[in-house]
């Protein structure tokens, strides 16, 4: 059972109240972070003609943006650890806005790589990490639900941006659209302003003292932060010795290779089977719609009494479900089969996304989450970027999509099984450690109460003596 937050955080999270405004703010930040790079593809065709470059060169704009967003993760974590979520998100919003406005005056493709890709990507990183972190500070009991709701931002913002971008492009061409998108992304600053630092209510009661003694190894880092190295103060490298963190990292790195490719190739696969362009696009809309509803539902499920203690298994199940889904895809015939696949894939994808960061918070605790997510995103940078191109190369090599789907299925199923096994052992070890700590506390509290009762007796004796005299 993961340790209760009150002991690790040192305060009781509100689990509501202003927290829901923070969830809304995180919804916007996370939505922009994930959906914005994908939504820019609408402009690529015209920009490609304008700058006279090949399609892959223009597609790099999205890739550079995504890469910068993941690579800037640790920087974002450092800043959040130091300054809190609010200033970082507001700076992030300003950066993305600035990047897009500068890009609208772009004279070469390199200009776009730098403005949209690097500056924009950094801005989005400064939105993503703090948004995830602040949820951990405001929620504990309802945290899976809050995470699920916040992660719903991604499909909702994507569904909004896609037609909006098309409309902007038709009205203003790509330059004007970039300018206006720069303005729209400034709304991340509004989201940032909502991210009030949480009021830390420290309770001074004996019950709390007992709990603090319950986790001596957890409390120790709080005390000794002043004595740690320079790097340690900025970002928590000791996470690499954390068992749960390592399990999460290894599983996720393998999983991300096969995570995004099936979405990227859903429409081309449909067209390859002879389905017309609009019906192929409809598949993606179905997928996004299902995703939108599954994420909060998964968050809610993750919050229930039965699943919350074993949420790692729930995540493992979601990952494995993805794998099975992809393995079965090539076997499904015709358009109806593809629609079914889109629906089931939507469910699987939504489940994994909703739980992605909740499980990390569950493993490392809300305090270390900021550093953890920074480290995770920079390491995940490689599989996220390499996944779709490798899948594309596979499709080109074999001339058939089914091998790519089989590979993606395996790449998701293996981590799923890995998670099941490793978390079984991890939970066992955590239970053992808890029992040891409880025994230690029991001993100490027993001594304590003996001392207390002795002093109490002493007081009574002295008082009666006083009364007598």
């Amino acid at each position, binding site marked *: 059972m993961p340790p209760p937050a009150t002991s690790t955080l040192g305060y009781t999270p509100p689990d509501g109240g202003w927290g829901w405004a923070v969830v809304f703010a995180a919804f916007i930040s996370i939505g922009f972070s994930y959906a914005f790079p994908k939504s820019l593809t609408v402009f690529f065709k015209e920009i490609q003609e304008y700058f006279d470059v090949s399609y892959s060169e223009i597609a790099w704009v999205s890739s550079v943006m995504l890469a910068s967003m993941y690579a800037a993760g640790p920087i974002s974590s450092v800043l959040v650890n130091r300054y809190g979520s609010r200033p970082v998100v507001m700076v992030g919003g300003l950066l993305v806005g600035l990047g897009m406005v500068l890009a609208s005056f772009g004279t070469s493709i390199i200009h776009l790589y730098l403005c949209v890709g690097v500056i924009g990507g950094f801005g989005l990183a400064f939105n993503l990490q703090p948004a995830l972190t602040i949820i951990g500070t405001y929620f504990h009991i309802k945290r899976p639900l809050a995470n699920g709701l916040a992660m719903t931002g991604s499909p909702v913002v994507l569904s909004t941006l896609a037609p909006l971008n098309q409309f902007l492009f038709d009205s203003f061409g790509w330059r004007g659209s970039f300018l206006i998108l720069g303005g729209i992304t400034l709304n991340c600053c509004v989201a940032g302003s909502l991210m009030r630092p949480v009021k830390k*209510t420290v309770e001074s009661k004996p019950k709390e003292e007992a709990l603090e003694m319950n986790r001596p190894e957890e409390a120790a880092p709080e005390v000794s932060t002043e004595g740690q190295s320079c790097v340690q103060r900025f970002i928590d490298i000791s996470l690499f010795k954390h068992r749960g963190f390592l399990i999460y990292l290894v599983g996720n790195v393998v999983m991300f290779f096969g995570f995004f490719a099936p979405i990227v190739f859903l429409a081309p696969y449909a067209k390859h089977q002879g389905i017309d362009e609009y019906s192929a696009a409809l598949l993606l809309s179905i997928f996004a719609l299902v995703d939108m509803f599954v994420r909060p539902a998964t968050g809610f499920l993750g919050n229930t009494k039965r699943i919350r203690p074993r949420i790692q298994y729930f995540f493992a199940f979601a990952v494995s479900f993805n794998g099975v889904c992809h393995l079965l895809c090539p076997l499904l015939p015709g358009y109806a089969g593809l629609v079914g696949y889109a629906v089931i894939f939507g469910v699987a994808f939504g489940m994994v996304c909703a739980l992605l960061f909740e499980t990390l918070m569950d493993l490392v605790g809300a305090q270390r989450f900021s550093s953890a997510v920074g480290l995770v995103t920079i390491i995940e940078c490689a599989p996220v970027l390499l996944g779709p191109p490798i899948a594309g190369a596979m499709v080109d090599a074999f001339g058939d999509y089914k091998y790519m789907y089989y590979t993606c299925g395996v790449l998701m199923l293996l981590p799923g099984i890995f998670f099941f096994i490793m978390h079984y052992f991890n939970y066992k070890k955590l239970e053992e450690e808890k029992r040891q700590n409880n025994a230690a506390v029991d001993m100490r509290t027993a001594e304590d109460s003996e001392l207390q009762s002795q002093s109490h007796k002493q007081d009574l004796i002295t008082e009666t003596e006083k009364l007598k005299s």
Partner: protein
Amino acid sequence: MSISCMHFSCQLLLLLSFHRHVNTNLSVSENSTFITEPPVETPEPKTPPLAPLTPTQTAQRSVVLTGENHTEKIEVVNPVILNLECVWPGNSKSLPNITGYWTKDGQTIETSYSNIPLENDRYRLIKEFTIMNEEDLGIYSYLFGPKAKVEFILAAPHLGEVRDKPIVSYVGDSVVMLCKMDEKKPQPISWNWYIQNGTNKVQIESDANAHKYKITNEGKKTKLLVYNLTESDSGVYYCGAVYGVATSMGHMQLRVITYYEPLKPFIGILAEVVVLVAVILLYEKTGSRKHGQSGTEENTDQTNNLSHRDNDVAEGHSSTRQRKV
């Protein structure tokens, strides 16, 4: 029967004697067929041509009616002598003779009225058309009396997808307009670009205005680059794919706007963001000031703010403390 046979063979002889036959690749599909052209070569006629006819291909297209109507699309690339054959299967109630005629683009071809006899349980007619230029293209229909109709749509290859919404660009900027032919369709001989001037189409000559226009042709694609845009450059532009028989046109609209147009919504959104951020931060400041005033008498906390919940918790704890001890 024998008369029609002779008639038919007469036609064939005529064809053979005057023209050079080239067997073209005809792929019969449901909707359209292509008459692909091998490169037009200068002929070495076995007999000297009777008239100064340019050597052209010959092709035949046949349609067997299954219902009452049928439409056949034929793509014509180069001038061709086209034989269109129509067959309508009769039934037990069919008349021994039927009058049929041709129409072009809805107008009856007066000389085409003929009586068609019922042979082998079907009516059959074949006619030769000379398709030389754009005027010869169109919709040719053959009507078997009032009852059955076969339609042949003769056209030059259509352009691929051309953007139907206006292309937007900015004053002082440049723009690229693209026209392309589908991969499966034949390559045009050349491309032309036209700009709409009043009701005329004026051809754009890139050599004369090299600083303003640049045309790049790459086989099945063509690009028109317009530099130093001004608002007067807005309008309709046409690209034409030149084939032997006709030029296939596509059109697109260019809209040139100033930077002020997107700037207005941008400033609007900027104002909205500033207002919202200010409102949210002010609300927070006033909210915390209220709490701060009421909290000075109570137990102080690590932060300067106290919430009601904190107060309740503190009171509850003090009471429990008393109870325990």
